[in-house]
């Protein structure tokens, strides 16, 4: 039925490692246990739901997608072990969506050396896409943190040119790249930088430091739990700046629910605590139930999801899975590892998909989504303040380009990409 193109166009065969007549095996590593598991462990459930949805509708070229997820507990040593398992023992065709900068760094060389397509790394680090020659098999997916930093920096420079700016950063590449981007526009406005270490939940000293510097706006490159924690501390300190959280940490549904329960009187409605908070968006989330993509995800989750609600983490996983299906279709009826890489380089930037902006895939770049928009949270939902702003790494200028936001999902919910070549 809905499985992309009519059958018979090409012979289905075991064209490469991990591909059989009726299946394609892909793998991923995620933190399913340990400190990083909360949140991130939901991503693969979303991806799996979407793959199940595709499989239920006939798969891709008649091949079912077999999705193997291994737990690395966000520990690179484990990542290296489970990747060995995936590549050498399970013999996957490609890695799809492996999560984390330090974790994935441990295996990126190995994957390229073994010539395993390493698609859509779940991390906004630049290294996945900025040097395709060194890492020909690796592709980023989400907008990189530097790009996001640039968009945020430019917005602040344009809208609050006199504000004293404070940065609240996670102490890793996320905060670092974000800071790099921000500084391109408002280096001179920044009066305070505070960093927290993931795992240390006491952020009061950092927030107190920001308060002491009398900042007007805080730019937070944080994860959702630290967004919530910083809000709580601000409450305690009676500190009320303008908050601007990066996309990663602003998930209004999640943060709102985290803040919603706090004690009688203090925070009754978590959503309202976030009212007025600024953020960026590149993917419509659960706060926009009317978005056609979100409606598709909801349908997929209702049919194939497991326990629990649809969340933004799950949407992230589904969107990645959607992109992979597109890539697999583009690789043709007899996909090969080199073929899928080649296909992405050829038509990757033209793919129409869930993100608000296009991917930057080409022979010269394996960077993911090229843009995002600035929004304001209001009543638990994001309201766009700007058009989609696209740019690239380095000093590439920021431009407005809303075209990617016009994409809508196909009726069937399954992409229909023509094979390349």
């Amino acid at each position, binding site marked *: 039925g809905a499985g992309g193109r009519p059958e018979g166009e090409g012979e289905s065969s075991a064209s490469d490692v991990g591909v059989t007549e009726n299946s394609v095996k892909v793998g991923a590593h995620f933190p*399913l*246990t*340990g*400190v990083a*598991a*909360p*949140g991130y*462990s*939901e991503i693969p459930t979303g991806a799996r739901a979407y793959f199940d949805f595709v499989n239920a509708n006939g798969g891709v070229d008649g091949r079912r997608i077999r999705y193997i997820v291994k737990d690395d507990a966000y520990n690179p040593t484990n990542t290296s072990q489970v990747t060995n398992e995936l590549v050498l023992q399970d013999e996957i065709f490609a890695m799809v969506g492996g999560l984390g900068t330090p974790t994935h760094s441990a295996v990126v060389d190995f994957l390229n050396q073994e010539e395993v397509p390493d698609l859509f790394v779940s991390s906004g680090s630049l290294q996945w896409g900025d040097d395709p020659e060194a890492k020909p098999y690796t592709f980023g997916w989400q907008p990189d943190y530097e790009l996001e930093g640039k968009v945020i920096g430019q917005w602040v420079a344009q809208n609050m040119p006199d504000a004293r700016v404070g940065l609240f950063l996670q*102490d890793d590449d996320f905060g670092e790249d974000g800071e790099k981007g921000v500084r391109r526009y408002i280096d001179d406005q920044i009066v305070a930088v505070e*960093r*927290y*270490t993931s*795992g*240390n*939940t*006491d*952020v*009061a*000293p*950092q927030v*107190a*430091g920001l*308060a*002491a510097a009398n900042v007007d706006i805080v730019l937070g490159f944080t994860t*959702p*739990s630290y967004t*919530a*924690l910083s809000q*709580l501390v601000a*409450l*305690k*300190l*009676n500190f009320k700046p303008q908050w601007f959280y990066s996309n990663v940490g602003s998930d209004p549904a*999640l943060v709102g*629910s*985290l*803040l*919603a*329960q*706090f*004690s*009688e*009187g*203090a*925070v009754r409605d978590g959503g309202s605590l976030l009212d007025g908070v600024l953020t960026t968006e590149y993917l419509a989330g659960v706060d926009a139930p009317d978005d056609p993509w979100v409606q598709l995800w909801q349908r997929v989750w209702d049919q194939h999801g497991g326990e629990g609600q649809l969340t933004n983490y799950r949407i992230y996983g589904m969107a990645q899975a959607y992109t992979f299906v597109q890539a697999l279709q583009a690789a043709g009826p007899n996909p090969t590892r080199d073929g899928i890489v080649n296909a992405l380089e050829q038509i990757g930037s033209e793919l129409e998909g869930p993100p608000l902006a296009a991917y930057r895939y080409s022979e010269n770049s394996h960077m993911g989504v090229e843009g995002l928009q600035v929004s304001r949270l209001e009543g638990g939902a994001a309201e766009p303040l700007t058009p989609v702003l696209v740019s690239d790494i380095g000093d590439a200028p920021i431009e407005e380009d809303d075209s990617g936001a016009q994409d809508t999902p196909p009726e069937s919910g399954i992409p229909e990409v023509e094979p390349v070549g």
Partner: protein
Amino acid sequence: MQQFLTTTLTGLTLGMVYAAFALALVLIWRSTRIVNFAQAPMAMLTTYVALTLINAGYSYWVGFAAALLSGLLLGAVVERVAIRPVEGKAHINAVILTLGLFIVFHSLGAIIFGSNFRSFPAPFGLRGLQVGGTNIALTGFGIFTIVSVLVVMLLLVALFRYTDLGLMMRASAFNQEVARLLGVRVGRMLTLGWALAAMVGSLSGLLIAGGSLVHPAYMDSVVVFGFVAAVLGGLDSPVGSVVGGLLLGVSLSFVSGYLGSDVVALAALMILMAVLLVRPGGLFSHAAARRV
């Protein structure tokens, strides 16, 4: 000035939380000579019990009481089932056993309650108090934390110093055989020690969780700092563990605020080493033992 005050006050509350956990470790150490690493996930489980009840519509205090009671029960059961066979055997076996339990409880927590962040309510306000127009980084819940830890400490001191029960518990810990010969029901004492310790541990879990986020690993860093606090204080002394907790909480708060949060653990190591170099048995250790 404002930052200094804030840092001190948050350090103080945090220190009290470490102290609460340290008290639980001291209690078990005093009553069984075992360092219980599983204390953290045990407290996590009982906190989730409270959360489940609160989410089901019961009041905070019902959840609070239920957590303490289930802690009591859990401690007793753990001692009976798992710890009893290794008591009095090689010290390291008990340590490994509690590490094993740590892993077991941890994954049980994740399996039963899911591994997502959940928020945990607090019974008192989470806004800083206003004193003469300036904001003090001390919340109603912070005061509750400080008071309850001090009360627990005083109760423990009283238990060990003034009651026959405390004496029998200590005797059982030090020398089971002699204690038995003197008619002490050693088994009961050990169970009681674990039960009480698990209850105090549950309290620390509730105090850390209150007005913050919980997930199955939320107690993990507390186990480290709580243990360090207990060791600082001398492991045998309830007062020592509170002092150790405060010392650690306040200094780490300053380190985090003024030097950076990535060196917090390093600072904890330095403080511990500095103290142990001067007093190898912790701050509140007794005079050097007679060796020969």
